[in-house]
């Protein structure tokens, strides 16, 4: 055993007894190989369990020279007891689009981090970054040098910056993808380098790109600007494959959920009746779809992937304003643009982004997310500033949720009227 000191951690140790692999096991194992920081981390965690409060102090350092993000300063408030985690900064590393790596890269990253940090990583953080957990201030510049010069990766976003854009696997491996998600993610990352590395906004801003409405990166729930692939034309149908599903030759859901016997596949019960807009029906042994009514929910395509495929006239739906529940509760994105072409250099999309950023930078309060600005100033104001045309899909509940208002100049006579003349025509 290496020359390290293990703290007494009975409560942490209890977490090792569950049925799943425990982070305590992993951290302890790494510590016993010679990383005192890992053992001090567990010691401090135990102390936090005893006191029922954190012993971390956050803040200060934001990055390396020239960067206003990418490093989250973290300090122990019990450095005498746990000196190896007195400084324990987190480094966010911008992941490659769709998180494709080769093993040589990962080995190099781990070797570098073993040398310059705690050896602990979190692949990946919620935003998508590779997260390197725990190093000291004097190691920040050397880590940055190694990342950029030896591994060709950059720091990710933190603070009031654009956060690291992230995307699903896209066309690289998914036949449903209506977008080249990786091209979009890479282009946004390169275009908005300044916003990504230097604070520009009232608070964080996130782009997430999903290739189809299955939305595998949960863009609709987690990003200020969700880019979700969709199609304009008809769902492609292979009627022979439909028959094969009905006849049992093909397994529904590509064989998923087959760990128990659900009985014979019933297209009526499992597909047609579950269509949210009821736009599907059988005519004899042929499946019919009224594509005008389809809301691109993907259910039928997910159940019968060999019979049904998205159309070929593809683009993206843009939604804005999702966030986690700090203020006013969690919020899903609101539809902004039902269909936009997403071909390089994505100029039309970037013009939209410039407009909404201008509005947010001018009007957003400190620590106000983009979605909260829309809530505060109304969707109508968002539509005006983004120079969009109001459409029915933006109205969640007509009457009870009147997002679209008239402005005074759109109403004959404005807001002023002669109440006596009005009452002469209308009884009170």
């Amino acid at each position, binding site marked *: 055993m290496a020359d390290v000191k293990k703290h007494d951690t009975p409560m942490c140790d209890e977490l090792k007894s569950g049925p799943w692999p425990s982070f305590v096991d992993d951290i302890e194992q790494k510590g016993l190989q010679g990383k005192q920081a890992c053992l001090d981390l567990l010691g401090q965690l135990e102390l936090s369990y005893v006191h029922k409060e954190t012993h971390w*102090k*956050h*803040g*200060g*350092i*934001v*990055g390396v020279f*020239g960067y*206003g*993000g990418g490093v*989250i*300063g973290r*300090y122990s408030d019990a*450095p005498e007891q746990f*000196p190896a985690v*007195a*400084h324990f900064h987190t480094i966010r590393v911008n992941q490659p689009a769709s998180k494709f790596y080769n093993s040589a890269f990962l080995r190099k990253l781990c070797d570098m981090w073993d040398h310059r940090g705690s050896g602990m990583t979190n692949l990946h953080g919620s935003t998508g970054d590779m997260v390197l957990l725990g190093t*000291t*201030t*004097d190691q920040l510049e050397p880590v940055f040098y190694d990342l950029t010069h030896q591994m060709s990766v950059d720091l990710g976003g*933190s*603070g*009031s*910056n654009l956060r690291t854009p992230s995307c699903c696997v896209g066309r690289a491996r998914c036949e449903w993808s209506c977008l080249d998600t990786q091209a979009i993610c890479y282009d946004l990352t390169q275009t908005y380098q*300044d916003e990504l590395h*230097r*604070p*520009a*906004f*009232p*608070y*964080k801003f996130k782009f997430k790109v999903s290739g189809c409405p299955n939305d595998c990166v949960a863009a609709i729930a987690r990003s200020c600007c969700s880019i979700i692939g969709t199609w304009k034309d008809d769902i492609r149908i292979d009627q022979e494959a439909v028959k094969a599903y009905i006849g049992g030759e093909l397994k529904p859901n590509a064989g998923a959920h087959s760990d128990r016997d659900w009985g014979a596949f019933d297209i009526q019960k499992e597909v047609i009746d579950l269509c949210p807009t009821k736009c599907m029906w059988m005519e004899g042994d042929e499946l019919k779809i009224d594509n005008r009514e389809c809301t691109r929910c993907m259910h039928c395509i997910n159940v019968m992937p060999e019979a049904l495929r998205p159309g070929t006239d593809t683009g993206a739906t843009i939604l804005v304003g999702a966030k986690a529940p700090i203020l006013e509760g969690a919020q899903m994105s609101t539809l902004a643009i039902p269909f936009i072409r997403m071909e390089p250099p994505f100029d039309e999309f970037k013009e939209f982004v410039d407009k909404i950023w*201008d509005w947010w*930078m*001018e009007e*957003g*309060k*400190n*620590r106000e997310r983009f979605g909260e600005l829309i809530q505060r100033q109304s969707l109508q104001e968002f539509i005006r500033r983004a120079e969009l045309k109001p459409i029915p899909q933006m109205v969640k509940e007509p009457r009870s949720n009147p997002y679209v208002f008239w402005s005074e100049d759109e109403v004959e006579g404005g807001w002023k009227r002669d109440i006596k003349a009005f009452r002469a025509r209308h009884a009170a």
Partner: protein
Amino acid sequence: MAVDLEELKQKILEFATKKAKHKSKMYIKDLYKADPNAKPREIKKAANQLVQEGKLEFFSSGSTTMYGVPGFGKSEEDQFGKLEE
């Protein structure tokens, strides 16, 4: 009309230094007041250049980034302690 960048940097620095005497950390939105005629993007660009030049400094909580003037408020070492060699 575009604002002269050097002139804007000077205005921001004067504004931030004056404000730092009362409150050492400020949001980018606070710096907008340094020149109400300048656009937010111009302020952001000028403020970030001042950081590059070492005349302003960033402070981050991890989720939000603020600006400070070096020498005002607590230093990194004061706040978090110096790492032992």
